C-alpha cells in the first residue's frame, strides 16, 4: 500500500493542503500545479515537506535532492518518494 503511488500522492496532497494552504478543500490544489509559481512553497515550506516525507515514508532526502524537478509539484514529489522507497 505504501508503495502505491496514488496513495502516496494523496497523503502528500493532504499534507500540503492542510499545512501550507491551511485548508481541506482539495479543489485548491491540482497535482500538476507549480507550487513555486502558485506561491505555495518557499524555502521553509520545502524543509517542512522534506521533514514530513522523511517521517512518513521513512526515506532520507539529501540536500542535493531538494530541486524543483523533485519538489515543485505534488506529482513530482510523489514520484520522488516512490523512487526513494524502492532504492532505500
Amino acid at each position, binding site marked *: 500500500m505504501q508503495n502505491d503511488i496514488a496513495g502516496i500522492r494523496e497523503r502528500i496532497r493532504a499534507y500540503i493542503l492542510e499545512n501550507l494552504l*491551511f*485548508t481541506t478543500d482539495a479543489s485548491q490544489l491540482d497535482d500538476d500545479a507549480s507550487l513555486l509559481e502558485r506561491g505555495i512553497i*518557499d*524555502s*521553509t515550506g520545502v524543509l517542512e515537506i522534506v521533514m514530513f516525507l522523511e517521517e512518513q515514508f521513512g526515506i532520507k532526502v*539529501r540536500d*542535493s535532492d531538494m530541486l524543483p524537478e523533485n519538489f515543485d509539484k505534488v506529482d513530482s514529489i510523489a514520484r520522488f518518494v516512490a523512487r526513494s522507497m524502492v532504492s532505500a
Partner: protein
Amino acid sequence: MPAQRLLHDSLLGACEGEGATKTAVIVEGHARSYGELLDAASRLASALRARGVQRGDRVAIYMDNTWPCVVAIFATLLAGGAFLIVNPQTKADKLAFILDDSGARVLLTDAHLAREYRAALDDMSDPPPVVASGVAMPEAESFDDVVASAAPLDARVPVIPPDLAALIYTSGSTGNPKGVMQTHQAMVFACGSLVEYLRLGAGDRILCALPLAFDYGLYQLLMSVRLGATLVLERSFTFPAQVFARMRETGVTVFPGVPTVFAMLLAAHGREALSFPDVTRVTNTAAALPDDFAVRLREVFPNALIYKMYGLTECKRVSYLEPELIDAKPGSVGKAIPGTEIYLLSPDGHAVPAGEVGILHVRGPHVMLGYWNRPDLTDLMLKPGKLPGERVLCTQDHFRMDEEGFLYFVGRTDDIIKTRGEKVSPVEVENVLHALPGVREAAVVGVPDDVLGQAIRAYVVLTPGATLSEREIRAGCAVRLENFMVPRDIVLCSDLPRTATGKVSRKALLENPPA
C-alpha cells in the same frame, strides 16, 4: 564610460563597443548579453510610451526574478518613467492598494500571477492596461509580442537627475505599505558608494536570489550593470541545492544574503560540507548576523571578505563594517557608507556622547525624497538638517556608537517585526485577522527564532460562540498576506493585556504571554 547621471546611463555605457556582447544576466542558466538587454528594454520603452507612459509616470512591475523583470526595469527608466516592483508573493488586496496608491500607468506582470492580479484589477475603478509574460492571457497583451513588435526608442526621453527613478514600497507601522521615492541622482549615488566599499569590478559575477522587489536584491542588478559585470539571477532561495549548483557553474564571486539564508546555508553545510572558493565577497543586511555565523561562514567561503551592513529603504544603505575589522568589532555594523554621514541624537535633538544610546540620523545624497502621497509620514522621518532647506533622515532606530565611531544596533522604536529579512507590520497582519468573521480581537508580535530571526505570533480572541480553528485562521491570513507574513503561531486566548489607556499592549504580550 560617459558620466552616469541617470540610472539607465549605466546600461547605455555597458553597451558601448565590445561591451554589448558581454553577458549581462544569467537567468536560471540562460545567458543574456548587454546588447540584448538594451534592445529589449528600448523596444519595451517605446511600447510603454505608446501606451501613455510619460516622464515621471509610474510603471508597476509585479513579476518574479526573471528576464522580463530585468527588461521591464530598464524599459521604464528609458521611457522616462519611475518603476515600482511589487513582490510576487503579494496578494490581490495589497496589489490593488499599491496600484492605486502609485497611480501606475501600466502593469507589467507574469501570467502565472493571474489569480492575484485579476482579483486586484477587478477591485479597481480605473485599472491600468496589463502586459504579461508567459502563456497568453485574455486580459493582457503578451510581453514577448509587445517587445517583438515595438521599434526601439528613436530618441532619448529627456529626464534629469532629480527626476523620480523608482518607488520602493516598504511596510510601515501604520499598516499600509508606503512608497519610498528615490530619484535618479540618489540611486546613482548609492550604487557608486556601494560598489566602492564592496570593492566590486567588471569581472565580478554577482548572485541575486533575493527578490528584485526588495531594494537589497534590486541593487545587485543596478551595481552589476553599473560595472558592466554579470548578474546571476535566481528565482529565490527556495531550492538551495539549485542555487549552489548554479553558483559553481557560473563562478559566482559575490554572495548577498540575509541571516535566514545564512542559517539555512550553515545548516546544509552541517549535513554535507559546502565550499565556494570562487566567492570573494559575502554581504549581510536586513537583520543582524550572529557573530558565530561570521566564523562558520569562513569554512563555506574560505576566500571571501564578509561584510556586515545596516540599511533601510529610506536611504538604501546606512553603514558597513570593513571586513578586516570583523573580529575586532564584534556586533558592530561599522561606519557610514562612502560619501555620507551618520550621527546619534537624543529625542530632544542633542548630540549623544560615545557609548550612550541615541536615535540614528543619516545625511547624504542617498536619502529619499519622501513617501509617495504621504507628507505626514515623510515629516516624521525627514527632519531639517544643518544647512537651510536640507533634510536628514531620522531613522527612528536606536543605536550606540563607540569612542571610535563604530555603530551598534540597539533596537527599534516601532513594533515592526523582522522575519526572514523582511519587514512585517504587526498592524497589517492584525487588520487581516480582524477582518476574519469570528475574530473579536487580535494582537501580533515577533518572537525570537533561530532561523527566521523573529517568527510571527498572533494572539487571537474569538467572538463568543465562534469556533474558528488555528488552521482556519492561518488559511484566512494566507489568502491576503504574503507567505512570510502569515503567523507561524496562533494562540487562542480569552483576553489581551492592555495599557492604562485601554490599548492592547504588545509589550505585555511579550513579557507575560496569556496562557
